[in-house]
């Protein structure tokens, strides 16, 4: 579920479609770069969970101390809450497209269904339902094949480059999209969710191969789906000067080659993938708060067995829904979600790197030369992106140029 439900969330849907329409295939490399980053940090967090038995937020408090840890917790809780609200709003929008019923009523219904399913179903069933039905998103990859996409140009998009002939305004918008895509791919909640899952499933050193395969294959699959959305948009929307501002526009990418069946499959795939991401975000917030304060936590426990954890995830959904019900545009929530998340990323990944580099805790499973180099490289990239995020947002009015 981390791969599909968490990776192809509402932010990726929106930014992939917009990036393809505005800059053609030129930002595929941003998804590829972000994917390598999330693979590096997911693998590291899974390894730390398996060997040192520490989830990310325990590390953060121990390594950063109470003051800086509390600041990180607050920033991260706010960014994940906004992300959760964006997912709930996204579900409301998609259900509105599917049924024609009012958007806000659909957001309330989505939250009620998510809460009920999380209360009643064992977590593995939630994971299977949203994760597997989210795989309907493969329809975007099928659409790309059926429209005879220019594979040479798509392959060229994987090579880091800036398109030539851009004006200063367009260049700034390009940089904003680059930062936003990196943020959307590297959302910190994915690592909180993944590492906590590893602890709950009682991973040990024997599970390190599974951890590596899950990180690489799972995250790459999600990335390929996001890249399919971008490439479809570059092929279909860019030349027609269509700006896919809302998630529903992305679904048209599948409707063009496959008609109404394609549209239905794409919308259902989006609905379940976004629902999976909503579950992940609210659980991640509950994990973060519970781990920081040392409460009982666990998604494999019955709700009353980890009472404060249960209250935390319910509260997260209720507050996220309240944000949506204020009438704020869900696309504005998406913008804020990526903006806040990139600011939190360096503080999330630094303690993780420090522990994964510490032989005393990790013994022979300490970061090797490759993991250490890639880890520091991506730490530098996300720190630079975090520093540039707010200036770029203000200079481009949120990517408008």
């Amino acid at each position: 579920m981390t791969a599909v439900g968490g990776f192809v969330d509402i932010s990726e849907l929106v930014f992939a479609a917009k990036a393809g329409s505005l800059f053609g295939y030129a930002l595929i490399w941003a998804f590829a770069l972000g994917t390598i980053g999330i693979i590096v940090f997911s693998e590291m967090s899974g390894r730390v969970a398996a060997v040192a038995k520490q989830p990310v937020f325990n590390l953060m408090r121990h390594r950063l101390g109470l003051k800086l840890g509390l600041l990180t917790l607050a920033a991260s809780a706010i960014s994940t809450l906004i992300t959760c609200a964006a997912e709930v709003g996204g579900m409301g929008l998609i259900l509105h497209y599917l049924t024609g019923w009012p958007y806000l009523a659909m957001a309330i219904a989505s939250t009620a269904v998510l809460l009920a399913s999380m209360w009643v179903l064992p977590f593995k069933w939630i994971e299977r339902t949203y994760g597997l039905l989210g795989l309907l998103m493969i329809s975007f990859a099928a659409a790309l094949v059926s429209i005879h996409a220019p594979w040479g140009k798509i392959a060229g998009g994987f090579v880091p480059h800036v398109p030539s002939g851009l004006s200063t305004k367009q260049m700034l918008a390009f940089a904003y999209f680059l930062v936003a895509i990196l943020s959307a791919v590297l959302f910190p909640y994915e690592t909180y969710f993944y590492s906590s899952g590893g602890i709950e499933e009682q991973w040990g050193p024997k599970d390190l191969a599974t951890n590596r395969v899950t990180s690489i294959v799972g995250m790459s699959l999600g990335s390929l789906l996001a890249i399919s959305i971008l490439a479809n948009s570059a092929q279909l929307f860019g030349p027609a000067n269509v700006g896919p501002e809302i998630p529903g526009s992305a679904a048209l990418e599948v409707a063009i080659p496959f008609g109404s069946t394609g549209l239905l499959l794409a919308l259902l795939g989006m609905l379940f993938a976004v629902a999976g991401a909503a579950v992940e975000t609210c659980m991640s917030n509950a994990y973060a708060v519970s781990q920081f304060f040392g409460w009982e936590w666990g998604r494999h426990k019955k709700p009353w067995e980890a009472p404060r954890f249960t209250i935390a995830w319910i509260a997260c959904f209720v507050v996220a829904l309240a944000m949506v019900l204020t009438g704020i545009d869900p696309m504005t929530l998406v913008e804020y979600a990526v903006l806040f998340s990139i600011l939190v990323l360096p503080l999330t990944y630094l303690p993780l790197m420090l522990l994964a580099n510490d032989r005393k805790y990790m013994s022979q499973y300490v970061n090797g030369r490759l993991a250490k180099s890639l880890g520091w490289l991506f730490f530098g990239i996300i720190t630079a992106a975090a520093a540039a995020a707010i200036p770029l947002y203000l200079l481009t009015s949120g990517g408008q140029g």
Partner: protein
Amino acid sequence: MKPGDPIKLVAELLDLPIMDKDGRYCGIVDDVELSGNAGKKMRLSALLVGPGAYEGRLPRWAYWLTRMIAGDRIARVPFAEVDHIHTSVHLKCRAEVVGLHTVEDKVRRMIPKGGAL
């Protein structure tokens, strides 16, 4: 690491999660209590757990805010109850014996016993 070994308080103990003998999370080492006199060897006598222990570790306004939200209770866990310290502090006893898990148990009573079939 065993309780008798020398320990770097900040690097190796402060802010570590605490687990009781049943493997349940039951708090974080929010502060420590030392015993001994000036010029003599200091000994770690207890772990302090709970928001009341944040005083002195947070700016005054942040502590005031925390106290308003979470109260100022402190549980004192005698160091003799510590079994070993690694990436968590593992206790020899159940959480309830040393006054931990009290809030968890209070909140538990408010949650229906059903769910997650």
